[in-house]
Structure formats: structure tokens, C-alpha cells
């Protein structure tokens, strides 16, 4: 059901961004080489710069930030200052900014201490409100939204989106919330797709889900995803949507903005006889990567022979490879690797003992085992999750059997 007749030729362009998570920490990165450390560290800011750059280049009317501009409720000042700088830059180009805060940067009942320039409109917390975008003195668009006051906004807010001033040509709803079907994010401001489709809004600018998803093309109901991946699960291109609305049609275009890309590459090392073979195999796989990339490597041994390289050897190899890769302009850095091996036949000199071993593995209590670290005076602060990492047992088993096997076979 589409209500509201667009009577003007004036078209509307804007960028739809969400989950910027400025100054967000990265997950799973261990020691980073100095050469790329700053780049990675500042990548969220760089991404924001990219966004601003695109906005100015495309001369859009405004940018929507649909929640989670900042990463923590107690947002860092640096992040805020950066955001302010960005807004100021946009202000200089007469680009408006509509911000709503999400579950990661909920207002917590406090006002912004930092004063943003006039082009910034922050949706107040609580009920859905609307604001009108005026272009050349003409009220061109009504933008609806709300900010999170607390981390958890669990009620369905869709009913609060009520279109007003229908004479205004465009009505854009911003909603930071979870599609009810999705389960990998906490269900904040949940909604059903059908509910959104039933509303007369011309564009549903969603946020919260980090994987970009176009739920609906007409009307566009879009998760732009976050703008910068922060761990190995947030792979590939990330960015915003460039939306062009006219009375005839609405077009959306994804624009990648990420400063650093997370990627995952699997390398088949079955046929690798030496560590040099491994290196070559890795090199082969890396070739197509063209962006600044943080790479997670998986070495796969699909053969029957045991993978004979030790951790140390592989680490050494990767260090060498990394050293070369980060020299490039579009650097690549392998920040982690995994080895996957097909389970080998065990040759046991004494079945009785191995039988005992298997029985033992089956009976092990992870909680008990990790107790020494999880109750360690510092460990208990950071390592309690270990008790839940059940896959560690399997990894340990695999490791142990591998080790025993190696020892038994002798070198």
C-alpha cells in the first residue's frame, strides 16, 4: 500500500549507514606489526572518513546513521570528537546528518556533552519522532526514528511509526532493531518484515544487523551492515547504501567503505612435502586479494599422511610471508591460522592404554580442568569463558593423539 503522491520533481539522495561502531575494538587480533597497527586501529575512523568523502562527492542531501554510531554506551571522547569533525565537514557541504543511537551507544538518560553542528539531528530517546528535511525551502522528506535510552529496547516499535504530513513527498523510517527471524543478534526492537511492508514509508533504513541485507526491494527495507569488519566473522566488503529517490523510482546502491577487510582463506596443503610448498600454496591463494586485508588462514591436510609441520615451523613461515605482504600498498596480514587434518588411523602399541585414554577424554570435565586459570586472580576476569569452549576437548584430543602418534612413530 503506497500512500502519498510525490508531486515534485525534486529527487532526494542520501547515504544510509548504520553500526559505524566508531573506535570499536577488534576481535581475535593478536600482535599486529607496527606497520599496519595504526591503520587497523584507526580503521573505523578511516571508514567514517570514506563515508564523508562519498557523501561530499555524491553531494547527497543527508546521511542517516541508524544506531550504534559509537561502540560503547560510555562512548569514547575521541570517537565523539571524530564524529563531530565529520559532521562539521558535512556541515560545510550542507549535508544533513540524522543520528539515532542504538543498543551500543544508548543515551542512558544523559545529554551529549559534545555539541554537534546544526546540520546534525539526533532522534530523541523513547518514542518514535519525526523531523522534516527541507531542501531549497521545500519540505522534501520526513524522517522518523528514535534513540535507545537503555541498552535493551525489546518492544516492537513498528506501531509507533506513524506517517504524518503526507503532503511531504518522501517518508523515511529509521529503525535500529532486529528482524524477528534472526537469532544471532539480541532481539532489540524486533519487527516482522511483513509489518514493515505494511507501512506506507518509502524507505526503511534499518540498523543493528552487521551483515548487509536487503530485506525488501520495494519498498526498500535495508540493513546496510556495519561499515568496518571487526573480526574474522565480519568478512568482506562493508559500507553504506547510496539511495536515490525520485517520484519515478527509488534506487539503492551499495558503496563499500571499509578501511580494512577481514578475509578467510583455506589452503590445501595435502600435497605439500616441504614448508616451502606450503608457502607457495599460501601465496597462490593470496593473489586475488586486492584490499588491505586481515587474513585468517586455514591449512587443510586432506591426505592420509600426518601433517608434519610443527606450530613453530608454520609460525615462522607465516612471519616470513607476512613480512613481505605488509610491505605492499594494499597490504595483507595473516593474523591467524588453523590447521585442519583428516583424522588418522591410530597405531597403538598398547590398546589397553589408548582405550583408557579415549574413556578419559569422554569423561573429562572442562570446567574442572580450566579451574586453575578461571580462578586465577587475573584469569578469572578474562578467561571464564574457557569453561564453555567445549571444542577445546576435541582439539586437545586431536592434538594429544597426534603428538603421541608422532612420538611413537619416532622421527
Amino acid at each position, binding site marked *: 500500500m503506497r500512500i502519498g503522491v510525490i508531486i515534485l520533481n525534486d529527487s532526494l539522495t542520501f547515504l544510509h549507514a548504520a553500526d559505524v561502531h566508531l573506535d570499536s575494538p577488534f576481535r581475535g587480533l593478536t600482535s599486529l606489526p607496527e606497520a599496519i597497527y595504526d591503520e587497523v586501529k584507526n580503521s573505523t575512523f578511516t571508514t567514517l572518513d570514506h563515508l564523508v568523502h562519498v557523501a561530499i562527492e555524491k553531494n547527497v542531501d543527508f546521511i542517516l546513521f541508524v544506531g550504534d554510531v559509537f561502540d560503547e554506551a560510555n562512548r*569514547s571522547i575521541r570517537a565523539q570528537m571524530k564524529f563531530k569533525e565529520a559532521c562539521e565537514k558535512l556541515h560545510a557541504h550542507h549535508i544533513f546528518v540524522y543520528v539515532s543511537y542504538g543498543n551500543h551507544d544508548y543515551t542512558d538518560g544523559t545529554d551529549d556533552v559534545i555539541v554537534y553542528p546544526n546540520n546534525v539531528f539526533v532522534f530523541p530517546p523513547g518514542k518514535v519522532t519525526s523531523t522534516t528535511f527541507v531542501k531549497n525551502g521545500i519540505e522534501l522528506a520526513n524522517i522518523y526514528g528514535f534513540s535507545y535510552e537503555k541498552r535493551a529496547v525489546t518492544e516492537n516499535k513498528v506501531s509507533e511509526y506513524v506517517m504524518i504530513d503526507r503532503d511531504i513527498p518522501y517518508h523515511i523510517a529509521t529503525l535500529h532493531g532486529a528482524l524477528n527471524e534472526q537469532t544471532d543478534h539480541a532481539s532489540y526492537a524486533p519487527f516482522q518484515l511483513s509489518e514493515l511492508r505494511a507501512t506506507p514509508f518509502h524507505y526503511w533504513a534499518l540498523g543493528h544487523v552487521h551483515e548487509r541485507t536487503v530485506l525488501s526491494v520495494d519498498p526498500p527495507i535495508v540493513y546496510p551492515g556495519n561499515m568496518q569488519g571487526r573480526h574474522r566473522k565480519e568478512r568482506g566488503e562493508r559500507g553504506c547504501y547510496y539511495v536515490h529517490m525520485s517520484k519515478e523510482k527509488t534506487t539503492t546502491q551499495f558503496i563499500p567503505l571499509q578501511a580494512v577487510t577481514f578475509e578467510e582463506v583455506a589452503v590445501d596443503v595435502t600435497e605439500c612435502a616441504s614448508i616451502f610448498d606450503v608457502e607457495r600454496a599460501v601465496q597462490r591463494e593470496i593473489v586475488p586479494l586486492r584490499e588491505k586485508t586481515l587474513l585468517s588462514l586455514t591449512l587443510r591436510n586432506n591426505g592420509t599422511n600426518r601433517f608434519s609441520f610443527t606450530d613453530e615451523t608454520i609460525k615462522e613461515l607465516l612471519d616470513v610471508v607476512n613480512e613481505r605482504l605488509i610491505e605492499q600498498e594494499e597490504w595483507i596480514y595473516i593474523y591467524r591460522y588453523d590447521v585442519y587434518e583428516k583424522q588418522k588411523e591410530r597405531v597403538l602399541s598398547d590398546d589397553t592404554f589408548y582405550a583408557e585414554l579415549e574413556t578419559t577424554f569422554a569423561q573429562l570435565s572442562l570446567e574442572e580442568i580450566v579451574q*586453575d586459570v578461571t580462578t586465577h586472580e587475573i584469569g578469572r576476569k578474562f*578467561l571464564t569463558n574457557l569453561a564453555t569452549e567445549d571444542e577445546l*576437548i576435541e582439539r*586437545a584430543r586431536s592434538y594429544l593423539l597426534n603428538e603421541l602418534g608422532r612420538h611413537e612413530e619416532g622421527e
Partner: protein
Amino acid sequence: MQFQRATIYGFGRWVDKTFAFQTDSIHCFYGENEVGKSTLQQFILFILFGLPPRKRTKFYPKRSNQFGGSLTIYHDRFGVVTIERTDKECRCLLADGSERDEAWLQQTVLDGMTESLYRSIYAFSARDLLFIRQMKRRDLSDVLFSIGLTGATAIYDVEKELKRRMDQLFKRTGKRPVLNEALAKTDDLFQKVNSLQQTEATYSSNVREKITLEKKLQQLEKEVTTLREKIAFVKQQYDLYPVLSEYKTVCEKLKRYEKSTPFPERGVTRLEEIKEQLIPLESEHHFITKRIEQINEECEQLKDELVHHTVYEKMQSVLQKRETYERYVMQIDEESRQIDEIKKRIAHVSREVGVDVTAIACSELPYQLEQQLAQLKRTGEHLQEKSDELQQSFHVQTEKEKRLRTEKEKLETNLLKESDRFRFQDVVWTFENRVTRQQTSAWEAHQQKRMKRSISVLVLFSVLSLLFPLIFHENTLYVIPIGLFLFILWQYRALLQVNEVVKREQKAITENEYDEAKRQLETNDEQMTKLRIIDAELQQVTLEREHWEEEKLLFAQKESEWIQQVNRLLEAYPFLEAIEPIFWYDIVEKLRELQQLDEMSKRKNSELERKRTYVKETENELRQLSNLFPNVDVMTMADVRDKMDRYESNEKKFVQLNEQLETMIRERDLLAEKMTRYKAEKTKLLSSAFVNDEESFYEKAKRVIEKEELTEQKEKLRSQLRATFSEIAIRNMMTEEINRSELKMAFDALELEIAEKEAELTKMNRHIAALEVEITQLETSDERSEASFQFYVQRDETYELAKRYTIYKIAFQALQRAKESYQAKFLQAVMQKTTDYFSYLTDGKYVRVYPPKEDELFQVEAKNNIRYTVEELSEGTVDQLYIALRLAIGNVMYKRCPFPFMIDDAFLHFDDDRTENFIQLLRSFEEERQLFVFTCKRSIATYFTPSAVQVE
């Protein structure tokens, strides 16, 4: 495995010595202490397992350069193998002639057996026996496991490796291990992030505080500015105080002039100009007026003399009467004299007649009147006569009657009352003397009468005298009436006394009484007689009276007729009333004369009156005229004439003067008109100054000038003040009452306040600057994001480490547990055998051996089911237990690791029976394995004779 031969090149005290061993038998080495039993043992172990260089030095032979030796063994798999070990190398020579290194030796021949393991399983000495006392489960398990598992080496290696890795990664109380370090680092970063976060948390409060402070600062600055202005103002006030106070005074003074109404421009000059014009006019006017007044006065004077026209006319008219008047004056005297004579005559006649001339003056006296009156006279005379006659007779009769009656009354009064008469008769009868008595009484009566009269007079008088003071309000005068009353009372009393005397005298029938009575009676009788005479006379009189009455009646009739006639006449001529009618006739002629005289007199009188009137009138006129002139008594005609003449000349003069006057008045009016113009101008001027007179005008002018001067002064002072102060400030200062010292005080106070505020300002500025620094620092610093980034990296790294550690640990634990459970199974076998052996050794005294539990020690159960720990057993029993255990282990393990036993004086504390048992037990193993027994006891050696070797 069996030892076949040991060749010693040089080891301890042994040099170039070879021992050959039989297979499957017990080899007993007997010798004193220090002969080299233990060295031989050590040599075998050295060949098998080697020795670290440090330990080797102990065994370098003193007598030879050679060190080491070889051991030939028989191995189930490889057959005969000679192991040669020197200081430098270790070689294994196989039967097929091949040579292997030490690694091969360890891997295959020894199969994970180590020296310590070997010692723990197969070699035991008296020293070792002590060990069992402390042996706990773990020790036992280690021993059991290491012996029991064929692949134990790999397991050990992995276990060792795991342990090493774990230890590298983490120690619960360590600091150096990687994970410990990483944790510490993470925590540091965590703390740092937290503290930075907290610092950032101050950002908003800082910003807010800064804003608040800036607001306050502004406020304070404003306050300081205000204070500065105030102090400057006070200072100026202080400096300009004299000016201000003067200004105030002037203003105060001016206030007095405030009420003054406006004053015309150039008022005084204008007034002066007007006056310049006006004064000559006024003086002229004044002169003329004076002149006019003079003339007027003259005129008035002339006018005074110049009688009014009427007066003049009067005078004229009077003068016209002058001739007549003077004639009349002369006639009047003559005529009045004539009249007087006539009047005299009238008076005379009227006196004669007794009638007033006036009464008859107007009466008509007819001619028949004389006749009438003559008749009347006659009748009247007749009647008079008759009346007199009647009067006379009546009088006589009356007198007579009166006299008779008086007499009779007197007689009757004097007649004694019946009672008295009787009493007197009695007295006479008794006493014949009463005549004197009667006389006395008469006198007394007379006395009394007189007294009474005088009393009455006195009473009257006294009453009058009483009135007198009442009238005159003189109290002292009351004395008189009071005195009179007293006197009256006294008189009255005297009278009463007299009566009293009489009465008293009557009572006493004295001679006098008798006389009296007698006289009384006589008199009475006499009088009785007289009375009777008198009564007869009275009768006579009454008769006469009756007769007189009749006459009288007749006379009355005639008289009334006459009276009627008289009355009729009287009616016509009332003036006759005063004259007896009988004389009327006699006077008629006289009356006629009177009438004529009267007429004449009247005529003459009227003539005279007329003249007199005329004269009088003229005189009146004259008098009136005179009255018109002051200081003139009565004017005569001549005077009038005189006056007339004078007036006429005056009048002429008057006219002249008047003419003059008129001219002057005209002139004056002209002047007045001119003056009026100027005056109007002046009045206008005055009224424009709201004053009524010049005095006020000048007064006002003066005030105006003063005011102007003051105003000027005020303006001067004001401009002086204005150079410094605002209008409002001046106004405010005017209303305030301040003195200089107060200003000074205010100045000082303000200075102090400013100093305080400035101090506060500085403090606040400093505070703000500090805040700004903090804020800027926070805004520009990426410390937090850096730290945060580092923290997450570090945390994840740490977590990864922890995961690795956990993997190791899981593996390690799994391995250990598997080992344990595996050991547990062997333990059972070992313990069974231990029990068997122990029971055997102790001749069945103990029936059961319990392995140690965790930290506990071995326990044994005696036949009577009592359990003892090893500590409770005798030394020998413990040795037996140990030996039983060692033999059991050795036997259980032997299937997997068939190494020879080495027993070094393990039965020191055994009694003979037990030694016997032990030896028997050992012998039972002889079939299956090599046994090496080292002893310093010959008795033991004898058990093994002949195979026992004496070591020297």
C-alpha cells in the same frame, strides 16, 4: 634379559676385571664392606644407562687410565649384545657384527627403562628399604606405570612435553610463564582502559563544570566590572565631593526658587522703560490732579460760599419777602397786644361767667334763649328753695332721730344687763355704794379705749416698719419693728392688767362695790325713764319723716321736669354744665359778648397768626438759609442781602474756575489715557511675572537674578560633575546623604571586595584553564582508544594462550588419568603378589597388604584382622614388606621388562627364619630370571654356596 659377562676396563676400584654370569640363577656376591660390591652394581648400571660426566669422575680408577668397560647381555629380540661404554662413547655390538649407538640402546634394548626406573623395580638395597616407609601412592603408581607400559616412553615424552609447555604457558602462582605474563599485561591494559574510561567519564562533568565555571566567571567578571565602576564612581565621588556638596547646596538653594513663577524677559528693563514714560506723565498727571484738586477745593470753597441754586433762589425769595416781613414784624407786636387785651377781656368775662370761651365759641345763642333761661331760673330758684326746705327738714328730723337714737342706744347700752342688774341689786342690797364705782369704770373704759387705739396705731406702725426693711433690704432696720412689737406687747399686757384689776375689784363686794351697784341701779332707772321719753320722740320723728317723704316725692317730680329741661339745654349748650342753671339767664349776655370777643380774638388771632406764620416762615427760611451756611447763626435779611452780593461775585469766579477745571480735566484725562496705556503695559508686565505690584516685581526680579545666578552656578557645577558622572548618578547622589569619610570607607570596602573577587577570578581562571587542559587533552588524546585497542588485542591474545594452555592441560590430564586407571589395574596384581610374598616371608603372620591411599602409607593386616601402618611395624617386618613389594613388582613387570634383579643386603634385619624364607622365595624365582645378591654377611652367602662369589 640376562647378563652374561661384565668386563671392567677401569671403574672405581675395579681395573681389568671380568665377571661371568650364569643364566637363570642366583648370583651371590659376598665380601666385606668397601670391597667393591656396590661399585660392581654401579658399573652394570653405568654400562646400561650411562652416567653424567660429573658423576663419572667419582668412578675414575686410581690405578688405571682406562675408564669404562662392557657388558654382554642376552636380549630376547636381539640375542647377545655387548654394550661397551667408555668415557667417550657407548657402542652396542650385536651378534651379527653390527654396531649401534646409545639411542638404539635406549630405544630398543632398554625400551624406556631408565636407571632410576631400574633401580626402583629391579635393584634394591638395605638403603632402599627405608623408602617404603615413606612410599605413597604416587610413588608406587609411577613405579608401576613406568614398569607396566610398553609405550611408556612416548607417553612420558608427550607428558613431559605437555608439562613443559604448560609450565611455559602458565603457573598458577607464577609470573614468568607466557600466559601469566599475558594476563598481567591484559590486566594492566584493562586497568588502564578503566582508568582512562573513568578519566573520560570526567570529561562530561569537566565540560559541564567548565561551562558552569565560565558562566560564573562571566558573572564574576561582570561583578568585578560593576565593582570597578562602583569604586571608580566612589573615587570620583570622593574626589568631587566638594563640588558635589556645593552643587547640592546650590540645588538646595535653587529649590527655594523652584516655586517662583515665570518672570518676563528683560522684565526690569522693560518695567524701567515703561516707568520712564510713565513717571513724567504721572507727575504731570499728579500736578494736574493737584491743580484740579486745588481748583476743586477752591470751587468747593466757592461752592461752600456759593450756595446752591435753590439756596440762591431761597435767598432771593427771602429777600423778596423782606418788605412784608419787616412790616409784619412791626404789626405783630401791636396786634398781639390788642389780642391780649381782648383775651384779657374774654378771660375776665369768662371768669365772670364761668364758662370757657371755647365752649361757647361755636354755639349758636338764639334770641329766645334769654326767655327760656329766665323761666328756668325762676323754676330753679323755686325748686332750690323747696329742696333746701326739704333738706332742712330732713336734716332736722334726721338729726333729731339720730340724737334720739344715740341717746336711746347710749341708754340701752348703759342699761344693765338683767343679770348685772340683779347682781347689782344684790350688791346694793348688800352694799349701798355703787355710784363711784360707775365713774371709775367709765374712766377705765376710757383708758382702755385709748390704750387700744394706741396699740392699733403701734401695730400699724410696726407693720409699716416691718415693711420698711423688707423694701430696703436693710437687716439692721428689723430692730425697729421688733422693738415696736415688744413695746406693743408690753402695752397690751398693761391693758390686760387693767382689765384684770377691774374684774378683781368687781369680785370683791366692797363698799365701793356697793356704791357702785347702787349707782348703777339708780342710773339704770333714770335711763329707763329717759328711754321711754326718747321712744315717744322717736315716734314723732317717724311721722314727720313720712310727711317729708311725700313732699319729697312731689319735689322730685318737679325737679325731674326741671332737670329734663336743664338737660335739654345742656344738650344744646354743654358749656353750661359748669354753671348752675339758675344762673344761666344771668350770663347770657355775657356769653354773647364772649362770643363776639372770641370771634374777634379769633379773627385777630388768625390775622396775627398769618403774619406770624409769614414772619416765622420767613425767619425759618432765613434760619434754613442760615443753616445752609456754616458758622452763621441766624441771618438777617441784611445778611442775606450781603451774602447774595458776595455769592454773585463768587459765582462769577466759580464759573471761571470751572471752565479752568474742565480744561485741566480734559488734559488730565488725556494724560490718564496715556498713563493707562503704559500702566496696562506695566500691569501686563507684572501679571506676566505673576505679581501685583512693582515691589514684588522687583523682588521677583531680584529672585530671578539670584535664581539665574544660582542656576548658572549649578550648571557650572553640574557640567563639572557631568564631566565625570552620568545624569542618573548625579540624581542618585543628590538623594543620598553621604559624607566623605563614608565614601572613603565605601571605597576601602569596595577595594577589598574587588581584591577578593579578583582572587576568586584568578582561582576560577586557573581552574578553568586546568579543566580546559584536561578537556583538550581528552579531546585530542587517543590514549583511550589506543589502550582499548591494545586491551582487546591483548585480551584476545591472552585468551588464545589460555586456550592453548587449556588444550595442553586437557591433553595432559587425559594422559595422566588414562595412566592412572591403567596403573590401578596393575596395582591390583602387584598388591596380590605382595600379599602373597609378605605372608610367606612372615610365616603367615600377616594376611593382607593394602596399598597406600593418596598421602597415606602402606598398611598390613595381621592374622587377627588388625591393620598396621608401616610405621607401626618392626624394622624387619618393614624390610620384609618392602622386599615382598619389590619382588611382586618385579614379577608383575617382568613379563614386559625382563631385567635381572639386584638385591643389596636387603635382609640385614631379618632373623634366621625370615632370612630362610626370603632365600626360599628368591630361589623360587631362580627358574625364571637372573638374580644378583650382594651381601657382606657370610651366613647369607652360605645359602648360596657353592655359587656364591667371594669378592676381594
